[in-house]
């Protein structure tokens, strides 16, 4: 059975259970929605459970197939959400349902939902969709790329030896990640409850924090909440952005790897630098600056204030922070701190080679030397990332968004941050954005969430298909011309 099908079944099981729970939790609020969600979730979970017994993922799937499978998986998830939103009438139009679903599963803090009017099931499902999306992103980053593909040279594999004890095998790794992720969610929800939030609200914000989805169920994100809630959100976002390895080490009480992790140190330094740089500007408090820095770097998208009015330099700092993004092994998006470090090391190496063209420059991370091949792939990945952002900005620009809104919107969607300067605004509300512009955000969110390689693999598949078709057509044309030529050529020979 194909790897893609197996992974869709696994994801379907989690999604089905989550949807069913959302439906059941909504009973007593809007029973129609509750029953619809519960039934849809139950059907999805039962089908996935039955299929899971009969499906065994292949031992060694091909890289291309895995990447194509990842692309298919996200597409199926988004379509499931779209159908559910449209069928229950939570979102009036099908295209809006697609945007809402894509924003949810890609953990982008953008929404069209009016949470005040939506039923409890819908609000919970919206948060759950980002939770499932975050879990799948962590599974892909921590289990699929390094373990299933068994290739240390892969772009996504930057966990090094540190990852080996968390993920000794694919099955154990998946289970452990699920337990850690769920435990972290429970801890966050309990912390929010202790700060005085209601059960549903605590759950919604908790799911949004852990998954870096950034959905709160309120139009002004976390601005209306108390300081304690905002503090819990800040810590939660930091841990969510730091990734599952950090949570694993904390859970195991292991402080040494925490200290030795270059990526974590860089993450903390960048957060501190962004906070200081923003707080130095007039009208920006230290607490607000730290909150927004961690929100941007973890690509969660929570906001405690309308930061778009802070001034141009602070918004550029947030843009850069969101562009760099979170750590490897987290549910967040962006380029990732590790990749940024490696790329800077690679660029520094080039500077050095200018002085001595024959110098052998080694780029290291966590006591491992990276091959030139890996660095080249990282370079290719980075170019693809910039191209995706550029194309996205052009797409938004052509569909009518202002220049600034296009650039910010594209970066924000690709990094799965969400809020943006311009039409979208600090709280990620898409109501004021035109329909064409909203739709233009969908491929960007999906491309960013897939972290580019599956998109590249998809492009590769299209290119290969095109080449194969071209070869076949040429072959057929040659055959036809030979058939035509044969009688003419044989004539004189025979004669």
């Amino acid at each position: 059975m194909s790897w893609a099908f197996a992974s869709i079944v696994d994801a379907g099981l989690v999604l089905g259970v989550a949807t069913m729970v959302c439906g059941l939790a909504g009973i007593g609020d809007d029973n129609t929605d509750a029953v619809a969600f519960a039934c849809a979730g139950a059907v999805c979970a039962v089908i996935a459970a039955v299929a899971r017994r009969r499906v065994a993922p292949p031992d060694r799937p091909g890289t291309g197939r895995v990447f194509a499978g990842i692309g298919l998986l996200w597409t199926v998830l988004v379509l499931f959400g779209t159908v559910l939103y449209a069928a229950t009438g939570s979102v009036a139009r099908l295209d809006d349902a697609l945007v809402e679903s894509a924003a949810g599963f890609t953990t982008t803090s953008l929404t069209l939902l009016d949470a005040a009017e939506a039923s409890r099931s819908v609000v919970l499902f919206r948060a759950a969709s980002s939770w499932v999306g975050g879990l799948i992103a962590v599974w892909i980053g921590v289990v699929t790329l390094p373990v299933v593909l068994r290739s240390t040279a892969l772009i996504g594999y930057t966990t090094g030896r540190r990852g080996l004890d968390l993920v000794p095998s694919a099955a154990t790794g998946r289970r452990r990640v699920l337990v850690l992720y769920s435990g972290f969610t429970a801890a966050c929800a309990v912390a929010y409850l202790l700060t005085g939030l209601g059960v549903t609200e605590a759950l919604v914000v908790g799911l949004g924090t852990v998954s870096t989805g950034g959905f709160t169920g309120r139009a002004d994100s976390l601005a209306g909440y108390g300081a304690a809630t905002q503090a819990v959100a800040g810590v939660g976002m930091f841990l969510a952005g730091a990734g599952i390895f950090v949570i694993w080490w904390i859970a195991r009480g292991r402080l040494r790897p925490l200290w030795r992790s270059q990526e974590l140190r860089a993450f903390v330094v960048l957060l501190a630098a962004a906070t200081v740089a923003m707080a130095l500007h007039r009208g920006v408090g230290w607490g607000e600056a730290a909150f927004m820095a961690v929100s941007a770097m973890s690509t969660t998208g929570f906001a405690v204030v309308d930061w778009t009015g802070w001034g141009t330099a602070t918004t550029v700092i947030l843009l850069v922070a969101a562009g760099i993004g979170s750590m490897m092994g987290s549910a967040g998006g962006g380029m990732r701190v590790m990749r940024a470090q490696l790329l800077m090391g690679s660029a520094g190496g080039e500077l050095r080679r200018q002085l001595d063209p024959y110098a052998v420059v080694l780029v290291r991370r966590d006591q491992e030397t990276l091959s030139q091949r890996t660095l080249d792939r990282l370079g290719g990945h980075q170019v693809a990332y910039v191209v995706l952002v550029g194309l996205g900005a052009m797409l938004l620009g052509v569909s009518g968004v202002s220049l600034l809104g296009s650039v910010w919107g594209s970066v924000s969607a690709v990094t799965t941050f969400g809020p943006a300067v311009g039409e979208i605004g600090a709280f990620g509300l898409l109501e004021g954005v035109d329909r064409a512009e909203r739709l233009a955000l969908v491929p960007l969110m999906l491309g960013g969430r897939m972290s580019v390689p599956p998109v590249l693999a998809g492009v590769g598949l299209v290119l290969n298909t095109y080449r194969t078709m071209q070869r076949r057509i040429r072959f057929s044309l040659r055959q036809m011309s030979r058939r035509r030529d044969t009688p003419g050529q044989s004539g004189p020979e025979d004669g």
Partner: protein
Amino acid sequence: MASDTVVGAAPAGPSPLRNRFDSTTMHILGIALAAVSLGMLCCTLLEAVTSRRDTMALGTSALLAGTAGGLMWYATVPGVIRMRQVFATVSWTWILTTVVGAVPFVLAGTFAAPGVGFVEQVVNSVFESASGFSASGSTVLSDFESPGRGLMMYRQLTHWYGGMGVVVLAVAVLPFLGVGGLELITAELPGTSSDRLAPRVSETARRLWLVYIGFTACAAMSFYAADGFSSLYDAVAHAFTFAATGGFSVHADSIGHYDSVAVETVAIVFMILGGTSFSLHWRLVATRTLGYHRNSEFRTYLAMLGACSAAIVLIIWLENGLPLGSSIRAAVFTVVSLGTSTGLSNATGPGSPGDYVAWVAGAQLVLLFLMVVGGCTGSTSGGIKVMRMRVLGLTMLRSVQHAQTPRAVIPIRLGADSVRETVVSRATGFFLLHFVLVMAGLLAVTSLGGELETSLGAVVSALGNMGPALGEAGPTSDYAVAFTQPARLVLALLMVIGRLEIFPILLTGVGLVTTAYRGTVRQGRRTVRWTARRLEDLAERERE
């Protein structure tokens, strides 16, 4: 940092110049200043026979630059040079030439206006000089009527010097420079590497300058004819801009001043040729055959300009509601102007078809892309260059193939040749540094009070040596309105960094910081040792 590679050595045997200082940097700088002073002198003569307003300022500047340059040239002799010194030589030559080049503007009071202090005048002069020598074309000049013709011609001449490069000129002048001349040229010329047009480096530099002069003459004659033989001054001034792909004009509304299809057509042709490798032009002169179509970079360059023009015509025709004819005229001129990093404009005023800041965001984003890419390698244009973009695109496609077959060995091919991996990693490194500099520049300029959209356009434009930017720094505005004084200085630095293609200035900066750090550490150690010795002495004395 890595150990320096010795790239050249002083001529062997007893030197007739043995009593002089041994400094290649000073020697090259001296020649560059002498050359600039010669230009100033010519402009002084022009000023003297035309408007006579700025004769003294230009004459004094020529004298100062000539004396300083001559002294440096005469008092020094090129010595052994290492790679780090190559970069330092090129960087310092450019920085000091830019500063000296600002003197005529300061002395003439070009930027003097009510409410503008002396410091701001100096900042504006340095900005204008940096923009001129780096062939960018960004300007802080708002009053185009007050300066005399000589001074305006000097402003154009800074483009011309900077286009081919003052270091290349110095290498061409020095037949006996056996000190890594090729490395000096490579460090200054835009592109991935410099083509040797002759076995001798100085001969290569000379041929490059010969082609450059010929190109300028052709551009001047064509412009003169297209303008109806009305003004030779205008023709020569704009020819300097076309050759250097600069962007300065003697009129406030640039090429829009003529509002003539013939003039714009000539401008388009020469801007395209200015953005093409000068090695190809030399081959045309030397072999009398057109080899352009065989060059894959040139083909990509033309295809890119064509595709972007078509896209913008469609966008502004449909979205901005401009007539098709005006859309084509405005789009093609603007695309070629920004795609070759020239920066001339055919806007006749704010809101006219050529004023691209009034176009929809999609069209402006295409222009932003062109500003990043620039022209061909070996040309006078700025930006990342078409060749590097092709390598980067192919690297991305290779990533696509690697995503499917991770162990495959896939070479990158440009035409029939496969590209060396060192070139691939250099292109990737350059792209990364360019990207980092854009972000750092954006952060700096916005921190200094720039508006976000304008700052983004200005930073990309400055690094790509483009000239006009987006927002308030568009083709019908000037940088003095859009940016504060410190922001203008940052942009001036970015222009020089972009002109030298990042590495020389960065390496010189890193070298300076390293030297300062080592010096501080050494001094600190000395102080600690000295204090310890004193303390010991004191202790001994007390014991005694």
